[in-house]
């Protein structure tokens, strides 16, 4: 995290909650974080920087404020006119990620472990070398590589480089160069990200973004092509963006169980059941949830007449006299966000 990245995550039109951005990056999945992450259009960044500290975040905010790019009121950050100008200019000057969102449905860190190991194994194999220090990897990843390698052994020394070359050609040159130097193989130890950042005058923050986004794009290419040489490495890395527990709640609700029944059977607090449904609503398309049961048609009509203007300006007070609960107000906002 640095001030450049912070500015990219802020809005030119409205203030944003600093804690929401921080929690999103760290990967905290509270409904409030997820909801505002969706509203800010930043859900793709969920869990992007698991080790981000409060101090790093504050430093970035303070640096940006000291340079007059940002003002902070009530823990909400707004871009100043010069902040807006810089953000606009950075859109063409700074690396802009394209595919971070796939991180929600693919286990990207493990994909990287596997890719690294696959490249090392194939590299040594193409030099007919059996004597080398293997990268350390999780048992599950090692097993996946073993299976993958024996299934592809006959032509892997051409298919893997070919697939990588195809991929690199889709990338901006600096990103392709950076990515290739992170790989390791025969007599090629590769470089660490901080070594590359030091040698290329990229900031470590940008370097990490380029690496992650390139990897995400490669994952997309693999998923789009059944015949991709890396496809077999991917099959147990796909995941749902919705947590298992929230998914189980949704399934029970779809089978016709009431909130009380679910809460009783799954030994969950009633508030947790509602949070589960909100989480599912945030991540899944409108068709995946029985909105008509959650928000009856007449309630939706009332909301429609009472809640007008920009969604972020809606106030619960406007509807709190109705016989409703807060989660319904929030769910309606999610629904409307998705219908725009």
């Amino acid at each position: 995290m640095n001030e450049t990245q912070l500015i990219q995550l802020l809005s030119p039109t409205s203030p944003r909650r600093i804690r929401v951005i921080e929690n999103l990056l760290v990967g905290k999945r509270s409904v409030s974080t997820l909801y505002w992450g969706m509203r800010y259009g930043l859900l793709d960044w969920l869990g992007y920087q698991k080790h981000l500290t409060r101090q790093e975040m504050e430093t970035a905010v303070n640096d940006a404020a000291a340079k007059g790019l940002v003002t902070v009121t009530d823990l909400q950050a707004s871009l100043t006119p010069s902040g807006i100008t810089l953000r606009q200019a950075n859109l063409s000057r700074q690396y802009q990620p394209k595919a971070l969102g796939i991180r929600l449905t693919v286990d990207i860190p493990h994909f990287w472990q596997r890719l690294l190991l696959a490249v090392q194994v194939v590299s040594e194999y193409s030099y007919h070398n059996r004597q080398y220090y293997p990268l350390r990897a999780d048992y599950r990843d090692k097993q996946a590589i073993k299976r993958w390698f024996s299934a592809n052994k006959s032509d892997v020394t051409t298919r893997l480089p070919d697939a990588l070359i195809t991929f690199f050609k889709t990338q901006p040159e600096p990103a392709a160069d950076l990515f290739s130097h992170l790989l390791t193989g025969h007599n090629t130890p590769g470089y660490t990200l901080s070594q590359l950042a030091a040698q290329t005058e990229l900031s470590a923050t940008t370097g990490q973004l380029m690496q992650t986004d390139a990897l995400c794009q490669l994952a997309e290419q693999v998923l789009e092509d059944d015949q991709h040489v890396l496809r077999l490495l991917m099959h147990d890395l796909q995941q749902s963006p919705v947590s298992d527990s929230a998914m189980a709640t949704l399934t029970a609700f779809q089978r016709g169980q009431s909130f009380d029944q679910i809460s009783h059977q799954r030994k969950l607090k009633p508030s947790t059941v509602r949070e589960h449904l909100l989480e599912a609503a945030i991540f899944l398309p409108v068709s995946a949830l029985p909105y008509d049961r959650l928000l009856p048609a007449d309630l939706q009509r009332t909301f429609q007449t009472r809640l007008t203007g920009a969604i972020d300006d809606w106030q619960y007070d406007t509807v709190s006299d109705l016989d409703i609960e807060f989660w319904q107000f929030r769910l309606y906002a999610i629904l409307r966000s998705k219908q725009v």
Partner: protein
Amino acid sequence: MIAETTFYQQLKQRYGFESFRPGQLETLTALATGQDVLSIMPTGAGKSLIYELYGQVTQQLVVIVSPLIALMQDQVASMNYHGEKRVTALTSMMSYSEKAWTLTHLNKYRYLFVSPEMLTQERVMAQLQQQKVGLFVVDEAHCISTWGPDFRPEYLLLGQTREQLGAPLTLMLTATATPRVKKDIKRRMRLPAASVVTQPIDRPNIYLQVETVAGTAEKQQRLIALVSQLVKPGVVYFSSKKLANEMAALINDQTACRAAAYHADLEDESRFKIQQQFMANQIQVVCATSAFGMGIDKNDVRFVIHYHLPVDIESYWQEVGRAGRDGAQSIAILLYQPGDEQIADFLSQGSIPTDEEVHFYFQQKQLSEYDKDPKANLVWFYKRHAMSEAQVLELFKKRAAQRTGALQQMLRYVRTENCKRRFITGYFGQAHMTQPEQCCTSDTPGTTIAELGLESTAQPPENVGLSGWQTVMDQLFLRKK
């Protein structure tokens, strides 16, 4: 009884060597006659070859107890490298399923590395008891002694563990043991009759230099000057990760050579890359904290510099031992700034719980809240093993006094105007020593780096910049252009 020739055959077949290094064959033949052995060999003298070969020849399970996960991983990687696949490390880093699979398939392995903590788990012991352990190896055996530099209470249980495993043949290995520690190791392992194989601790090809500097700025300048002047590769040891990072950056900035920091904060991927870069001489200087290099076999390290005062002679000598493993002239330089002993004292005493901490942890009903704190774990270890609070307090008091004494010895090394080498060999109880012509700062204070043949004449590597991805692909996959 295994014939000596069998060991030689395996040595040739497996490693391509014609002869053993000092101490290896003596240890192997003692083991072959059913003798438990305490083998004291300097770092890098090929300790692991002994148990690798023994497992190979006898086709039996070898269990190696080792104190550090990083060390075990390096050893597993190194055995993989030599073509041995039937080896694994049972550590807390393993996932639950991986551990479960390994435990139920122990018969698939010839070599099993375990941490002493693992051996306190019933599930692990139950599975191990079903195997016939051919050789029980205690690596870094000095960890069992409260008189040693790296005492680990879990090691105290190893004597008992060994008996629970049916008292298999046992090999205790250490690089650094004073006579007192040797005796203590045998006693605590309940193997008073074990034979002892000792190698000379001295490394005559390493010139021993101690330099006193006035302050931090001078120390930094001196480091930069030395790193520029000396033949590389080399290792610089620091007492903190932060300083290792900063000095690596400074070396990259102010000298023509490439440096990298290497310490426990690195993730596996970076650790691997930096090790490999160092092996391939792509970086010439590594700025390390003392955890570095445990598993690396780099023979041509020409200098080891200590930027801080080590906490005891044992760790100092172990780190110095990274230099000159190929036998060629090398140098160890200790940069001492008056007052450095305070940092060392802080580090050395810092791991010992205070009276208040002992009292606090003794009062807790559960450890869970504090289980990340090594001090809490330490106190609880004794609590679980039925020691009273008073006994534990007394124990830590002794430990603190022992650490203070060890640091005093280190300072005596720095200050002595007599032969530094004789001081070291004397410390480890080895009176006999042949002094090399160029010995140490005390004996030949005027010796220059040039006279040692360690002045760098190589042109600094040209910074050619990074190649494009196409070139990287050609190199990685041996693609013909």
